[in-house]
């Protein structure tokens, strides 16, 4: 067990720090969809051109082919340099891409991965449906095989960035006789295909980042199927494994930065004189360090085994609860300012409101607790 970084890692960290200092965008991200997309993609492109696109992705597909620990260093420096949220690049970088690396065909990898890294194409996720949320296996959007095409009809929901996306990781039921986990297929859907309608949904923080998507006889080539037809559940699970596992590298450093800024604000506002507030902040600091330590453990584990295991669900439960506690404490500390959305703490208020999604997005904390109970602890299934 070793917490130290090699001298090569330290050199890499210094290079990354210098590069980020010179390159992190300082202009404001536009509010309109097209402008926001262009801004997000330009920033991805800049990272790619700087040699930092896909740090742990294979070199054959545009990545840097470096060990996961370099990716961890990148995220730590990125958060501390105040790097912007990844925006509409999220799905491609954090799960579409990794899923293709794990399960895609050679052709698919060569076609899609470099364009994700270069900021040329935006991806979105099409898993949840109005009738298939926590119970994801009850998906009913149909994909009928006609010749060498899949004809898709149905509806998806909570699809982040669908209104900006070029492609979607789409989970459909291809075997009409099947139910539950069998008979599903994971397919790459071109979002510009005829028959697709997208309706953005405004969330409680005021942003409209996720959408409903309707499919009316949308035709997708069978070549776009990732894994085998009927094998979609396993492909989807590997996707969620990435989201719940190594995806926490970036989130944990962001939490740390958020908390330290909160403590500075608390000092300015005079709140640190209160022993109760100091205790709350100390508990949060302790848990942020625990989050960091657990992330190091899962990164070490993923470096040994390649695919993250169900332990990622433990970190997801911990992270979601911790993030919400930090944002609640933030509201408590800014006091009356919290009523002034347009004032100097407006950003904090937005983050607080967004934090309600932490215990839902990527699988509710209740479902995560089922997964931990059944797949980590081996308790009997409840259904």
């Amino acid at each position, binding site marked *: *067990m070793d917490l130290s970084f090699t001298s090569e890692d330290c050199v890499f960290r210094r290079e990354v720090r210098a590069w980020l200092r010179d390159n992190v965008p300082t202009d404001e991200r536009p509010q309109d969809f097209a402008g926001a997309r262009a801004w997000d993609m330009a920033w991805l492109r800049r990272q790619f051109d700087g040699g930092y696109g896909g740090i742990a992705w294979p070199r054959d597909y545009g990545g840097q082919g470096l060990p996961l620990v370099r990716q961890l260093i990148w995220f730590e420096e990125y958060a501390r340099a105040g790097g912007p949220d990844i925006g509409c690049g999220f799905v491609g970088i954090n799960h579409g891409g990794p899923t293709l690396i794990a399960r895609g065909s050679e052709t698919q990898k060569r076609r899609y991965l470099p364009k994700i890294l270069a900021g040329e194409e935006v991806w979105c996720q099409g898993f949840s449906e109005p009738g298939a949320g926590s119970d994801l296996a009850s998906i009913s959007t149909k994909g009928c095989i006609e010749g060498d095409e899949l004809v898709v009809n149905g509806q998806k929901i909570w699809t982040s960035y669908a209104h900006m996306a070029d492609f979607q990781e789409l989970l459909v039921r291809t075997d009409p006789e099947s139910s539950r986990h069998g008979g599903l297929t994971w397919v790459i859907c071109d979002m510009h295909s005829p028959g697709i309608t997208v309706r953005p949904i405004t969330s409680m923080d005021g942003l409209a980042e996720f959408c409903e998507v309707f499919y009316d006889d949308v035709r997708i080539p069978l070549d776009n199927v990732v894994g085998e037809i009927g094998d979609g559940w396993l492909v989807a699970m590997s996707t969620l494994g990435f989201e719940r596992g190594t995806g926490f590298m970036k989130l944990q450093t962001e939490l740390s930065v958020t908390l330290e800024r909160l403590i500075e604000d608390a000092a300015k506002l005079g709140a640190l004189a209160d022993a109760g507030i100091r*205790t709350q902040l100390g508990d949060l600091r302790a848990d942020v360090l625990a989050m960091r330590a657990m992330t190091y453990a899962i990164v*070490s584990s993923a470096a040994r085994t390649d695919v993250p295991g169900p332990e990622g669900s433990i970190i997801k439960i911990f992270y979601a609860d911790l993030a919400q506690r930090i944002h609640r404490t933030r509201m408590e500390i800014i006091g009356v300012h919290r009523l002034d959305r347009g004032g100097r703490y407006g950003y904090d208020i937005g983050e607080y409101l967004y934090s309600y999604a932490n215990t839902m997005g990527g699988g509710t904390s209740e479902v995560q607790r*089922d997964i931990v109970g059944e797949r980590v602890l081996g308790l009997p299934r*409840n259904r």
Partner: protein
Amino acid sequence: MDFLPDADQDALIEATRQYIQSRVPPNDSLARLDDIRWKEITELGWLGLATEEGAGGAGATLLDEVFVFREIGRGLVPGPILATLAAARLAAWTGHTALSSDLIGGQARVARAISLPGDHDRLLVLDGEDSALVLTVDGDRAALYTTPQHLETSAGLEDGTSVGHAGLADLGCASVVADDGRVVGRLRRVLSILTSAQLAGICGATRDLATEYAKNRVQFGRPIGAFQAIKHKCADMATHALAADNVTFFAALTEMTGATDSDYHALAAASCCRRASFANARANVQIHGAMGFTVEDNAHRFVKRTHTLCVTESFDRAAELLGGLPSAQTSEEAWPRPN
């Protein structure tokens, strides 16, 4: 960077667990270690793994001690192992190498005295009966005294134990004193990190015991672990245990670099492990139902041990202290703040 135990560390964990299972099993409810067992644990090196070899130690690392103390917590092994280890470390760091070697070799046990709130002259002495010496760690001063011959005692919180009562004046002159803030701070961090390790062990033990019970106890025709009310409690216990383990490892590894005098990481482990251990110990009682309320099950002992550990090292104040510190200097290198 590899944040998982290596093969040697796994072997140390396994050997420690096996020794405890065979010689000090939790179900025997030993309130003290007899002289034979005390000799055995010195042969295993428990009292000086990370003390330098010239002072009777094994020259291993604080992390190795963390692995051992996690098992001690898990197995509810009675004291005064940590106080004796800390006394030996204090002796070694203040040039009393012969005393350090004697303590590590099992020549004498060391009790721990803690001040009562509001009256720093009144002391509560833990494990005083078998101990020739008493360790105090208060403010910027750590010291070893000869145990007073006639200690007034009363029943202790943990079943079968007693606590001694003494005035500071009863202790007489200290035989070893450290009043260098750096030495005392370092000693306090060792005590704190190895106490966190024991709490992490309690978190793991209670998670496992509750889960096992939930798999076997049948009500309404099903194992109770099939119900989400129980399953989710077990999942939360697993979450607490994973956090407690890893934050303690992080604190130990940071302390081992010697790069900082900051208490930041040790306090973080203390705050996290304290909450995790209380939560898990409580949940374990509840999942065992009425059985958990009886002394026929061990559940109550994890609650009591958690209180003992947290009170002895003032863990209830850890979060407040941590909240008032400047931000952490990390082990790899200090990060500049973005503008």
